């Protein structure tokens, strides 16, 4: 069965495998952004954080020989950028979107500058867990080589949902995001809450970046992210600020991204530009179908500058 062709079965398999392989960075960035936005701030700079995480993770893994150290450093680099965003936004009359765009440029620029010596070397990669051991088919085995970070992301989503709904911390975060005045009246430190939320969001995005360079596609170069960070920020709106919906949105995006190459490899080659655009068409369609001119998006934190 090793060299057998799967024919049409290859398409659903590729979409499933693609959903697992490609979705992880989307998942981490969108979970991080979800947390940040729940506190009432948008951090558009996560594209920069993702690229910075990819670079610093790859560099650390290469220099220390330990890919997990790379994941940690990527997360820390991400939270550093998050702290920077929160600290600037804490000043009077600063627009968080503008700061986010500035940080996106800073993050990518810095990563390109510092990452120059690491384009060529090969860093050790994160190990994958072979969940496909039961299958005789090489294709299925390869599709089910799942990276532990993906599982961490899957576990994180319900944990975040639970934390936001039922813990005191989650409640404080939501109050700050829903009504800064109420939070101030109750004596909660708005800026500190937002700082922590943005730093945590940055940490997740950085870890998502390290997945790109240390697992899939598993190499550092400057076009690595090609806009995935920005897409993930949009996914949060798409997922209605619900961490569990973020998982589904990320899987959908990952799978849709795999559709183009998979169809071409089985021989459906007409109109591949359209298939390559599938994820974006899908987002647009769902956004249009679910939006309304009469009320703000369900679940949107009231303090977000875009929904206010």
């Amino acid at each position, binding site marked *: 069965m090793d*060299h057998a062709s799967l024919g049409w079965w290859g398409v659903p398999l590729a979409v499933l495998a693609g959903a697992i392989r490609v979705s992880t960075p989307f998942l981490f960035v969108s979970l991080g952004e979800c947390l940040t936005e729940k506190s009432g701030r948008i951090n558009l700079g996560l594209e920069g954080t993702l690229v910075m995480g990819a670079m610093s993770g790859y560099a650390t893994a290469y220099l220390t020989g330990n890919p997990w150290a790379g994941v940690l450093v990527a997360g820390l680099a991400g939270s550093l950028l998050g702290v920077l965003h929160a600290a600037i936004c804490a000043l009077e009359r600063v627009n968080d979107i503008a700061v986010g765009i500035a940080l996106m440029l800073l993050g990518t620029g810095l990563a390109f500058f510092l990452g120059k010596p690491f384009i060529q070397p090969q860093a050790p990669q994160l190990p994958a867990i072979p969940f496909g051991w039961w299958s005789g088919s090489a*294709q299925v085995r390869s599709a089910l080589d799942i990276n532990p970070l993906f599982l961490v992301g899957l576990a994180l989503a319900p944990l975040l949902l639970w934390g936001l709904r039922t813990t005191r911390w989650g409640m404080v975060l939501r109050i700050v995001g829903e009504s800064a005045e109420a939070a101030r009246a109750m004596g909660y430190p708005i800026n500190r809450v937002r700082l922590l939320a943005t730093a945590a969001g940055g940490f997740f995005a950085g870890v998502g970046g390290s997945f790109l360079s240390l697992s899939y*596609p598993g190499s550092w*170069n400057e076009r690595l992210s090609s806009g995935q960070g920005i897409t993930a920020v949009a996914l949060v709106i798409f997922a209605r600020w619900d961490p569990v919906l973020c998982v589904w949105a990320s899987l959908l995006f990952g799978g849709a*991204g795999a559709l183009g*190459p998979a169809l071409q490899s089985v021989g459906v080659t007409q109109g*591949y530009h359209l298939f390559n655009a599938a994820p974006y068409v899908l987002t647009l369609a769902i956004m249009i179908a679910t939006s309304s001119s009469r009320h703000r998006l369900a679940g949107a934190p009231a303090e977000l500058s875009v929904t206010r």
Partner: protein
Amino acid sequence: MGNALRFSRRSVLKTMTAAGGLGALGAGLPWTPAMAKTLVIGFLYVGPRDDYGYNQAHAEGAAAVKAMPGVKVLEEEKVPETVDVENSMESMINLDGASLLFPTSFGYFDPYVLKEAKKHPDLTFLHCGGLWTPGKHPTNVGSYFGYIDEAEYLSGIVAAYASKSKKLGFIAAKPIPQVLRNINSFTLGARSVDPTITTAVVFTGDWSMPVKEAEAANSLIDQGADVLTCHVDSPKVIVETAEKRGVFATGYHASQATLAPKGYLTGAEWNWAKVYTDFVKMVQGGITPPNLVRGGLKEGIIKTSPYGAAVSDAARRHADAVKAKFMDGSFVIYKGPIKDNKGNSVVAEGKSHGQTDIALESMNWLVEGVTGSIS
């Protein structure tokens, strides 16, 4: 109006100061005549120069020039195909005194290189990939490119011997003539060994899309392709993915052998080191370089990567025999009858297109045996 006046006064002042300064330097410094002999050469790349691909191939050429006596080499990476390349060339010319420039990316040519060449008629601009046309383009511009599909044909032969599934995978960026020519030559080479072989093509849509390239590689392998090759800016991700999945790969642009010690068969590489050192020797010797340089294996513009461990003796012998014919110029890849993959005849019986045939530079079909379409 006032603005234009002020600008011109300022540039006049600047020129005068610069000229004065140079004059003073010339008078005051005893080593100036020795300096004048140093040829300052600028290389501009569109991406990072260690990308295991297009830019690395050029940077290896620049490194060979650096080793020559009497030259000073300037390099700038990641120069976008916009007015930025004009600015970069300007600063190389004005600040560093560059008199020979190699803007190495296709999109630099029109209008940026042409504009700069008109502005500095006494300097030489040699561009990779463009098609210099006499009468239309300035004479101090040259363009050079190679028939790398000859090496792709040889890669196809080697791939055919290595493949057990008789299915090859080709990951390409865009369906433009140069890319289609590589796909077709690779496939024709493979099918010259075994006419049942097919090549599945996946177009990613852009020159550098690491995630999509990895997805394409995985999909092709899932569909049974057991030799992958590509035409993208940096084949690193594709060659690494093939190695991880335990299939073979042939390289492109530069050698990726170190990335896949088990599965790397051979590859089609540019030999810019020879091209660039030849150009520089001409300029140093006071010869004007030719405006249009084209060539393949025979002219030394193209080379193949050394065979990997997995290449069988039969494959080596076959590929070496064809390579020898390329070297003496007797081999023609596009010799009729050739059909495209829709069944139409594209090269009629008895007709043949040699490498220099301009008809090949507007190729818009995929040869029989390729699974894929260009729209």
